[in-house]
């Protein structure tokens, strides 16, 4: 029986990906485990592996195709003993009937299989029936879209052709907005053409969005417009911390190339301090969902890493349990692989809070947008010498301003203040992190 190769879901939230290139040609023999194609998601490049032996009979989605919905048929393998040409000509049977799971593994890591399951004929919508017109159902099925993720504009919220087409052109099956949001008239935003008309085409260069830019735009627009943000700011005296850092780095053992085993940055202290603060104020170590608040046991702290063309937020898991050196080395590894876009989805998805540090650019203070499912993010400015009042007299101290953005749904003002206050206490007394 021919085996359908479907666009794999490389992560639970992946809706679509780009088929970067095929690693096999039509007619090539493939063995189970062979890499068939490279899939580029918003944040990583992965390989699709064959699950069986056979011959690549047909390529359905060509190299360089962008925005291929998850579970869409991308190619067909003829099993051993089958005529590849006949398989290609006959096409594959309906995906739901005969799709063999395709295992996708990160290109650079030990197998962490993510199985792309075929789309069920009637997708569950929290178990409830999804109301959609027959035509909308068919177009969604043919495009591999999950109707449960599309919001309908027809009578009683029924999904109609227009909605599915909008989801296809607007980037996969969008998360359904809340009913209130769906009913509110959309703010009139300028169309692409209207915007372009304001400028002379000779005087700009047009750079199409890549998948990372689209993801950043979509997620942060959603975050900024749906999360009620509030901001808390505190100044931290980091002279003690700077001295401790110097001592810690000086004590690092060196290998035979005279390279130190670690080099702790101020940011590593910030990550550690936030992680410990989240343990001390556990009610702020949370994730908001529609039905409940998830109170986390460990402190998973995301760190925004700027990379060419965008940014990514790898997560230091259980950061409260890790030493500064471990955090420093983990960050170094993340930063290197992030720049190559080789991070695995599980390395950048999740987290309860985050750190965004623009101190290296001399920023004194700023506010950051929360990246769900996180419920807060700490925006860290530069440590700079300022005149402060100490014991009634002016004195010079190194001050770092930190601003915490909080999601007001799970975190009230006083709770956020407790978290930031715990953070300040730790960052000013770094020895406290050690106990």
């Amino acid at each position, binding site marked *: 029986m021919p085996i359908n190769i479907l666009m794999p879901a490389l992560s639970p939230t992946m809706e679509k990906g780009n088929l970067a290139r095929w690693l096999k040609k039509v007619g090539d023999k493939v063995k189970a485990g062979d890499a068939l194609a490279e899939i580029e998601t918003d944040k990583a490049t992965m390989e699709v592996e064959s699950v069986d032996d056979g011959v690549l009979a047909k390529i359905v989605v060509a190299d360089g195709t962008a925005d291929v919905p998850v579970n869409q048929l991308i190619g067909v393998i003829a099993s051993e003993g089958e005529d590849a040409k006949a398989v290609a000509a006959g096409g594959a049977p309906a995906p739901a009937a005969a799709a063999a799971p395709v295992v996708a593994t990160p290109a650079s890591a030990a197998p962490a299989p993510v199985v792309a399951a075929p789309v069920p004929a009637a997708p569950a919508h929290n178990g409830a029936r999804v109301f959609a017109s*027959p*035509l909308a159902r068919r177009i969604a099925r*043919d495009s591999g879209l999950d109707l449960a993720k599309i919001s309908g504009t027809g009578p009683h919220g029924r999904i*109609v052709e227009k909605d599915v087409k909008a989801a296809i052109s607007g980037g996969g099956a969008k998360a359904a907005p809340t009913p209130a949001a769906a009913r509110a008239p959309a703010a009139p935003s300028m169309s692409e053409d209207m915007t372009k008309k304001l400028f002379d085409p000779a005087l700009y260069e047009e750079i199409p969005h890549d998948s990372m830019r689209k993801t950043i735009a979509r997620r942060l627009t959603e975050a900024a417009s749906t999360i009620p943000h509030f901001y808390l700011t505190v100044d931290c005296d980091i002279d003690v911390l700077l001295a401790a850092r110097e001592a810690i780095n000086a004590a690092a053992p060196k290998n035979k190339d005279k390279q130190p085993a670690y080099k702790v940055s101020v940011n590593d202290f910030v990550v550690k301090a936030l992680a410990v603060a989240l343990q001390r104020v556990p009610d702020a170590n949370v994730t908001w969902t529609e039905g409940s608040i998830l109170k986390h046991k460990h402190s998973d702290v995301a760190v925004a890493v700027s990379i060419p063309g965008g940014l990514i937020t790898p997560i230091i898991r259980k950061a409260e349990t890790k030493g500064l050196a471990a955090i420093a080395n983990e960050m170094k590894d993340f930063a290197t692989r992030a720049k190559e876009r080789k991070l695995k989805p599980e390395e950048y998805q999740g987290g309860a809070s985050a750190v965004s540090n623009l101190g290296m650019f001399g920023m004194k203070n700023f506010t950051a947008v929360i990246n769900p499912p996180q419920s807060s993010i700490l925006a860290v400015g530069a440590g700079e010498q300022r005149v402060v009042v100490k014991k009634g007299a002016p004195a010079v101290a190194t001050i770092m301003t930190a601003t915490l953005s909080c999601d007001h749904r799970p975190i009230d003002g006083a709770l956020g203040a407790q978290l930031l206050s715990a953070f300040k206490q730790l960052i000013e007394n770094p020895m406290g992190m050690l106990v």
Partner: protein
Amino acid sequence: MTTPYDILIIGSGPGGYVTAIRAAQLGFKTAVVEREHLGGICLNWGCIPTKALLRSAEILHYAQHPDAYGLKIEGKVSPDATAIVKRSRGVSQQLNGGVGFLLKKNKVDVIWGEATISKVGEVTVAATKKAPMLPQNPIPKGVLGAGVYSAKHIIVATGARPRVLPGIEPDGKLIWTYFEAMVPPAFPKSMVVMGSGAIGIEFASFYKAMGVDVTVIEVLPQIMPVEDAEIAGVARKRFEKLGLKIMTSTKVTKVEKSANEVTCHIEDDKGVKQTIKAERLISAVGVVGNIENLGLEKLGVKTDRGCIVIDGFGRTNVPGVYAIGDVAGPPMLAHKAEHEGVICVEAIKGLHPHPMDKLMIPGCTYCHPQVASVGLTEAKAKEAGYTLKVGRFPFIGNGKAIALGEPDGLVKTIFDAKTGKLLGAHMVGAEVTELIQGFVIAMNLETTEEDLMYSVFPHPTLSEMMHESVLDAYGKVIHT
């Protein structure tokens, strides 16, 4: 100056009065201004009275062919122009009274006179220049008169009137519009009908049935130009079999009048000229919007080719001024006007109606045989870039049609091959105007061919042809 209205509608045609009732239901203080007859052209001079005339034609046709049904009629059956017209006027009168009753029941004020929008939010009504048509359309009791009325929202629903070709101006005697054609004092011996749209072809059909020698002249290559070419072709064959003379790609260049006859100078697309003499000429070359004397120019309301420009919710470019129906552009159909009106007031109320999708508006022509359609024609669907699956089913294959003695006709369905979307449905034959609604619902619910195939159609009915046509598009037809 009276208390301000929330909604004031100018014109009580099918668009205006339906809008008024819906507005009143929504709790708006509503008034409608009318200058001559409640119910407008549709009810008094259009859709309704022509259906009454065509019913007489239909019964006459059966009575003239009793043998086809195993019957014998002793003596002669002949049409009586006066009685036929009287019946038709009676139908209009009954419905005209019904509109007055419905408006009263819904507490809609009726203001009698000619309206001008003096400024945004204000309408000045002058005494009407048109005499009430007695006995069937008197001025209703309890109406308000001339004066200045203020309203938050003013909806123009003034409809349309026959288009006039220069040099061929209707004179009410030899050159008729639908007004005169509706109330003939007697049937002429011969007639030329200029224009083969719905109005032209219905009158041609009626007068032909009444024994008049009728010639239809159409400037385009196809009769009923908005219809699917194949359907129009089937209709044309049938018309010609019934004795109608049809000349397409032909225009009337000049009309000469004598005492009781017109001479039409005509020319075809190859430049061949000839003349046709007939006792009467009906000018049915379309309608134009009634946009004059309303104060629209002064307000700066945007118009285009004789119609007011609106958005999907009836809004003009001037806030507080709306337009619906014929005056707001084609298709100029009563059911389109009604829907636009309801959408307009529901949007004003802040409900969220869906804007009008003009592709979903069916069109019906009540000639013999009838023609009905919705959606894209085959040519338009191809033009739009679709790959098509087209199904056809002829009346000759349907048991009910044979039993009725109506074996001529065709049901045609057009699908997008890629998605199974029903793009259009077109029919010609007996009772198809009553059938088309099935496909209208199918299109509105976005059914695919599958849902239509899975639906059970009752036997024996003409509707089975709708099913078979869908089956045919996918190579599954049974009865051909």
